[in-house]
Structure formats: structure tokens, C-alpha cells
């Protein structure tokens, strides 16, 4: 049996990026494939900027957190109104 996975997830990476995309696959070491991803760039002075990225394979080492996005809740959020510092980079420790 085969079913199409269409879960939208948010990944927080070790270097503090927030990447949102459609979850396509993963393995033992938490390497993850995301399609149609975009990065959400948070800033304290401006609203959230969205950068299109495309198809990504993110290495498990670089992943902090994978969250399933509630699309309804996400749609109700006005990203341009959000001000927040970027997440701390822990990749160079």
C-alpha cells in the first residue's frame, strides 16, 4: 500500500533557520526531505520575510526540531505583524 504524504512541517535548524515545507521522507539519522520549502526569516524590526527555497534534503545533524503545522492556525497568523529575534545558532559549538 502506498499513500501520499502531504504534511506541512516546520524545521528549526541548528544554525537557527526556520524552514517550512511538505514532508517527503526521513531516515534513521533524521535526514529529512522537504519539497516546496520556504524559509521564514524572523526579525525584531520587520515582519517575517518568506524566501522560496524549493526541494531540500536537510541533514539530521543540522536539525533541532520538526513540528507539524496546523494549516488553519497558520493561515490565521499574519506573519507581517510578527517581530521576533532569530533563533540562536548552535551549529558552531
Amino acid at each position, binding site marked *: 500500500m502506498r499513500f501520499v504524504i502531504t504534511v506541512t512541517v*516546520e524545521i528549526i535548524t541548528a544554525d537557527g533557520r526556520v524552514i517550512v515545507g511538505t514532508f517527503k521522507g526521513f531516515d534513521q539519522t533524521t535526514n529529512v526531505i522537504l519539497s516546496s520549502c520556504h524559509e521564514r526569516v524572523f526579525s525584531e524590526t520587520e515582519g517575517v520575510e518568506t524566501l522560496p527555497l524549493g526541494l531540500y534534503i536537510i541533514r539530521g545533524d543540522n536539525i533541532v*526540531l520538526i513540528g507539524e*503545522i496546523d494549516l488553519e492556525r497558520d493561515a490565521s497568523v499574519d506573519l507581517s505583524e510578527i517581530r521576533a529575534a532569530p533563533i540562536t545558532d548552535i551549529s558552531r559549538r
Partner: protein
Amino acid sequence: MLFYSFFKTLIGQQVTVELKNDLAITGILTSVDQFLNIKLDEIRAVDEAKYPHMMAVKNCFIRGSVVRYVQLPASAVDTALLQDAARREAQQPTTGGAH
């Protein structure tokens, strides 16, 4: 394996996980694996004003390697039992080995 077994006994409890990037998340523990990767349900950032990054996230997977602390409800932990289990594991350094 002790901590893996221990965390499994905590499934269903509300815990707070503090990550190495200082982000702290509260949620219901739903799953743990051998790497101490953690799954949480009904999550929220402890400091929601500082971390709106996951506002629309309802459940999440946290990589074990980035966890700094896990805060547990004291009532859910039997420390005497845990000490006992730790001693037993210390007596048998090789898993499934000696005796």
C-alpha cells in the same frame, strides 16, 4: 538504555524541554526513541512572546542531541526506583553480558 526506559514511563506526562538554543517547549510527551529523540503533543513555547516561531505547530519531534534539560513533574518520578535501576545497570556494565 536506562534513560530510554525511564522516559518511556513518562509518556503521557506534561514535560518542559529546554533546548541548547535556549528555546523551552512545554507539551505532552508522546514518544521517545533510543536516541532520546522526543515527540511532544499540544506544544507551546514557554516564552511565547520571544518565540512566536512555532505558533502554528501543534506537535513536534525534537532531536535528542539538542536537548539541554527535560523538566519533569516530580510526582511522576519514583526516585528510589530509579536509583535502584541505576545500581542494577552499573553492576552489569555490558548489556546482556556477564552472569
